């Protein structure tokens, strides 16, 4: 009999997570980023649409006045990056959260009920997956834009809220598949049969046994959903959804989009800083996702 103090699976997972140095570093980085972004009125040096000084102020290289240089109308790139990251992180986080919740429910119920129900749900999922993203965007732009009451709930085309729902609408399938796979594997384990043997309802088993034991893959899926959302957001910006540059708002996606032009013109800071920020965020989330997967690997919970 072990003489260890009780180590809950959660604490064991935490310990394993903390042993991944890259992940821990990523957490620190993201935490700093989030902090910088939350305190944006203080950390940003200028307003999002503010010119750094009177002209000439366009395309200034990085200097004391503007740490990351200025853009085509003289706005400080550093400050815009802070505001942009804030918008993107919010969009990424919320859409990932919603799509994960939806995906969990769909995947868990489909996987556990099995049979024809599972077949139907999975075919619907496949439908969503197969549907071309951009075509759907155009369809949605035209249909939803004209349904007024929907606009009230989901927000109008150029709002962040709209993007969140759009990305969630197209992002839940991956999570559903992952959760369904996990549930299928767990379904035959004896502790599930034991719960059935005492008369537990399906809902109880999903809630009490299947989902908690799927936390690992769910967390991983969540982290990748965030990255996916942030990168998808830049595509959407290109197509005229979400914060529009014309309105003065900005997002990481818009800033990365502007990088295209900069490659030819030689104003390297327009490209380097936003892209670097995106890469950093993606890498950080990837490292965290990897570490989460290792930390919550159910095989290690088998003990001995």
């Amino acid at each position: 009999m072990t003489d260890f103090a009780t180590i809950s699976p959660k604490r064991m997972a935490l310990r394993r997570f903390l042993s991944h140095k890259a992940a821990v570093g990523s957490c620190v980085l993201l935490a700093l980023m989030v902090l910088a972004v939350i305190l944006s009125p203080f950390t940003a040096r200028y307003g999002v649409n503010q010119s750094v000084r009177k002209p000439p102020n366009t395309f200034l290289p990085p200097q004391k006045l503007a740490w990351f240089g200025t853009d085509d109308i003289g706005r400080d790139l550093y400050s815009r990056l802070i505001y942009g990251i804030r918008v993107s992180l919010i969009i990424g986080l919320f859409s990932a959260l919603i799509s994960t919740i939806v995906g969990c429910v769909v995947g868990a119920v489909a996987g556990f009920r099995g049979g024809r129900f599972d077949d139907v749900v999975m075919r619907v999922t496949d439908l969503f997956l197969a549907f071309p993203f951009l075509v759907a965007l155009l369809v949605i732009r035209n249909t939803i834009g004209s349904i007024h009451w929907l606009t009230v709930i989901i927000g109008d085309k150029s709002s962040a809220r709209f993007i969140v729902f759009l990305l969630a609408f197209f992002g839940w399938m991956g999570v559903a598949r992952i959760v369904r796979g996990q549930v299928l594997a767990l379904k035959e384990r004896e502790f599930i049969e034991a719960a059935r043997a005492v008369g537990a309802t399906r809902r109880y088993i999903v809630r009490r046994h299947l989902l908690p034991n799927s936390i690992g893959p769910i967390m991983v899926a969540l982290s990748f959903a965030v990255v996916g959302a942030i990168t998808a957001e830049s595509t959407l910006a290109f197509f005229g959804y979400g914060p529009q540059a014309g309105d003065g708002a900005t997002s990481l996606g818009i800033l990365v989009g502007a990088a295209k032009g900069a490659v030819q013109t030689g104003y390297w800071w327009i490209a380097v800083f936003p892209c670097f920020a995106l890469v950093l965020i993606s890498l950080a989330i990837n490292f965290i996702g990897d570490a989460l997967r290792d930390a919550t690997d159910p095989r290690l919970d088998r003990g001995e």
Partner: protein
Amino acid sequence: MMSELVLSIRDLRVTFDTPLGPLEAVRGVDIDVHAGEMMGVVGESGSGKSVTFLAAMGLLPHRAKITGSVLLNGQEMIGAPNKVLRNMRGGLMSMIFQDPLSALNPVHRVGDQIVEMLQAHQSQLSDKDAAKRAVELLDIVGIPQAAERAHQYPHEFSGGMRQRVVIAIAIANNPKVLIADEPTTALDVTVQAQILEVIERVQKTFGTAVVLITHDLGVIARVADRVNVMYAGRNVEKGGVDSLFDHPSHPYTRGLLASLPHEGAERLTPITGFPPNMLMPPPGCGFAPRCSFANDGCLTSLPALRSFGDLETACLRAEQIVIDGARP
């Protein structure tokens, strides 16, 4: 009287580094295997019986710390260069495991897998000769219609048949030692009887020494010549099979035999307590915490194996136990 020594393990120690600290799986094991004999190695979880022979085969991961000596046909295996180890495995010494399905490659035909083993150690064998020999080997292990079945894939065989194939691969190059790690544990009892018969037949035909690792004392009683009992990473008792079953000297062996169901028993006699946690092994005799004969000396000093009548025992109080009239 005893034939030549083919495998000699001396003071083998294996330690694994785990996140929870060093795990001493094997703590000074001595085993001698003579040519042509069937040596039974008995132990339960934490005894180190499997790890001992995985170490001898060089099959443990690099991070395992291994010290001691393993002499196979006089040649040292611990720390030997990879070339020597590769020659040894499948050549001089083979090992078969509990699950035949994972031992066989599912995408290769069974005959090809035997040929692969043959040609790895007998490179001069032509494809044709190797294929012929493969069929002969399948026949030796009792697979009906061997010539046709050599062209089949592992999934087309049942569990018992697969284990026969695994044995055929293991004996392909006529090894001096065959290590069988729980070869019948996953099989039905009627199939187990067949496989034990195959192993015995192979042993008699080729003069191979067999190390049969198991927790089943019935299997030991059926086929083993000599027995090695392991507990908590060490040997606790050794001897001929008849002597060991008739008058076991070590309390663990006694406890094990007594706890088996037998006729007329109202209640079984379990061994109290639990197998040891090898992360924190007991300082003295590994079995002492569970032993009803243990005294303070047992809890503090690690006993060595010594002669006791026609057995070898690692119990400090073996004589006293007999004097006190404890029933085996």
